[in-house]
């Protein structure tokens, strides 16, 4: 076991896959010589060569389109979109092509492409470096959608994603690259080295898609969340001295409905939390499923804590971010009537 932050863990996953499988190639803007603006691919071009770790033009649609063609020709591309906010120029190739190639060709052509992209706020990136657009991708049949919350899972999930024969959109909450974050920007940053999930095996291992992680078992309330909000949820529940069960989904598609529903059936109360805009966010789908499946167990309406229905504003980052206060309000509402 080694201590790794999330950037190192992701790097290690790609390193291992480049080493094990000659068909794996990395591609993206500034990922080669430079090692990526977040340094996630640092050293990999030097180690595996310019032909396996490709710098690309600044053209997200071209990156995805070319990755599809490369995958059809037997490679296993891992494409980086520099920020999730810049995934939209590649949206058509993802939605119309990548997601549906297996289906439309009855499995005769497939494109095992992994698209990695940093998401979320908390780094003062303003409206174009902070978005969490995962919900849109969950609406597209044929895509798997993953978002890890810690180095251990990040590495295992990324290896799984690369080995997966279906396309995977892999969101990396950039605020977690260097450490867990409980939503309070005024507290000193905590590094991963002090966190158990910062212990990461050096070799190959996988974390399966569709298997949620029960971060904390509890009896009073279920908090269903993923990404950065896992830590905010923990802190908020702790501050309220609640015995909350906190579930880190890890993958949204496939979704671990069983884990969600067994938890809610046990606790009878549910809060869903994500950083993305609330309106039509993935929290809506979770709430819809939970009330469908656990209606008779629910003792109060499911509450959603999420980003507001506005763009992510530069100056009001911490008023936008669904921090502990927003979680606490949602939790309190979900605990009514006591």
């Amino acid at each position, binding site marked *: 076991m080694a201590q790794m932050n999330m950037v190192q863990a992701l790097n290690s996953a790609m390193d291992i896959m480049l080493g094990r499988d000659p068909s794996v190639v990395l591609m993206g803007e500034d990922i080669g010589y430079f090692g990526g603006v977040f340094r996630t691919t640092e050293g990999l071009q030097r180690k595996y060569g310019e032909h396996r770790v490709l710098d690309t033009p600044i053209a997200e*649609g*071209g990156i995805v389109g*070319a990755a599809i063609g490369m995958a059809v020709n037997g490679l296993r591309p891992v494409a980086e979109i520099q920020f999730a906010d810049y995934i939209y*120029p590649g949206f058509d190739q993802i939605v*119309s092509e990548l997601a549906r190639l297996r289906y439309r060709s*009855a499995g005769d*052509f497939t494109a095992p492409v992994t698209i990695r992209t940093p998401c979320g706020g908390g780094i003062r990136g303003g409206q174009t470096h902070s978005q969490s657009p995962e919900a849109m991708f969950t609406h597209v049949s*044929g895509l798997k959608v993953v978002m890890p919350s810690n180095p251990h899972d990040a590495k295992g999930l990324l290896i799984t994603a690369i080995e997966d024969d279906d396309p995977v959109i892999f969101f990396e909450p950039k605020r977690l690259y260097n450490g867990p974050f409980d939503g309070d920007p005024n507290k000193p940053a905590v590094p991963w080295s002090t966190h158990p999930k910062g212990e990461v095996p050096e070799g190959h291992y996988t974390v399966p898609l569709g298997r949620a992680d029960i971060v904390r078992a509890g009896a009073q309330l279920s908090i269903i969340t993923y990404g950065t909000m896992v830590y905010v949820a923990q802190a908020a529940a702790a501050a309220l001295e609640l015995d909350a069960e906190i579930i880190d989904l890890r993958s949204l598609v496939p979704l671990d409905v069983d884990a969600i529903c067994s938890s809610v059936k046990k606790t009878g109360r549910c809060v869903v939390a994500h950083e993305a805009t609330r309106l039509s966010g993935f929290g809506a789908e979770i709430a819809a499923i939970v009330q469908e499946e656990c209606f008779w167990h629910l003792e109060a309406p499911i509450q959603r804590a999420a980003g507001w229905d506005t763009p992510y504003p530069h100056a009001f980052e911490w008023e936008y971010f669904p921090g502990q206060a927003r979680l606490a309000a949602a939790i309190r509402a979900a605990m009514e009537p006591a």
Partner: protein
Amino acid sequence: MVRSRLHLPRSPARPGEAPDFSYLELSPAGAVARPQVGARVRDIGPLAVELVRVLDDAGDAVGPWNPHLDAAELQIGLRHMLLTRIFDERMQRNQRAGKITFYVRSLGEEAVSVAQCMALSPRDMLFPSYRNQGLQIARGIPLVNLMCQLLSNTRDPCKGRQLPAMYHSAAGHLFSISGNVATQFPQAVGWAMAAAIKGEDHLAASWLGEGSSAEADFHYALLFAAVYQAPVILNVVNNQWAISTFQGYAGGEQRSFAARGPGYGIAGVRVDGNDFLAVHAVTQWAAERARTGGGPTLIELVTYRAAAHSTSDDPSRYRAKDDAEHWPLGDPIERLKRHLIRLGEWSEERHHALSAELDELVAASWREAVAYGTLNDGPKLDTDLMFEDVFKEMPANLQLQRAMMRAEKSSR
């Protein structure tokens, strides 16, 4: 109101007007020089605006681009083109008769697909558009397979999931056609990049219409092809029309489509798309260029969409009725036929006999295909197939939905 100064491309012949192709810049057959395959892009700029032609009006093959194909090969080309046309006619009628939901003809453009396919090697990967059925035919995909796709029947290689004409064949190295125009262009470049990375010899080729060249994917493809010097041939089939808008609305009024190539640092060649020999020669040149490390080529094939856009379209609403007959580059089948006859390698009789043979081939194939079911009659695809191939393995939500769908069906 102030008078608008916006320029709008002039559409040459609308209904009621006389056909007018005076806008077309033509070169005489044999007039365009044939540069070395390894020539630098900057030295071959004129290739992108002149028009490579081999067959002259008399039906002789002239000039430096003459590919000197032997008669047998020309006869095969003629056969593929004729089969494509007969297939199209028959499928069009089947659509009109309500047997298939939709069809797209390639009337007048048969040389593009057939000659290009024949100039490539069978392991080269083709990324067609919906109007390249000639590629399927020249690659020898059984007509029955194509028809089963059109019928969405029990032998449909797409398992009922695609609109008619969206063929694919993994064995034939023919990529799955998309209903979204142009998306296959950067994919072909990616495929070619992978071939280069793997050190393999195969190249990729892709096709789109001049109208579709307006999409972003056209730009991505040219750019990535230029940056990585990918072994790819990118073809713009300029058949003058994109549904109701004339090629000027895709930028063709200002400049040839081939000229985009040199703009990106890619060889650009403009070729008479109705001249089987010229198309073959230019494609061969581009293929050799790609295979010898010379990088990508953008080919503009100047042709004319003689039929409607699709069976959902009625061109009499937007273009002169007898436009096609005035098209100055003639008909590709007629031109190759005349050439073969002039070579003494063909005759009206043989042509008739071939037509009859192909008619029967198409008819027999159709009889077989409908036996596997049509959308409305005969054996049916298992509706469970709707839930397969969304992912490699069917996830729980789809299994549940499949069960719900079965229940719905049995409730009816």
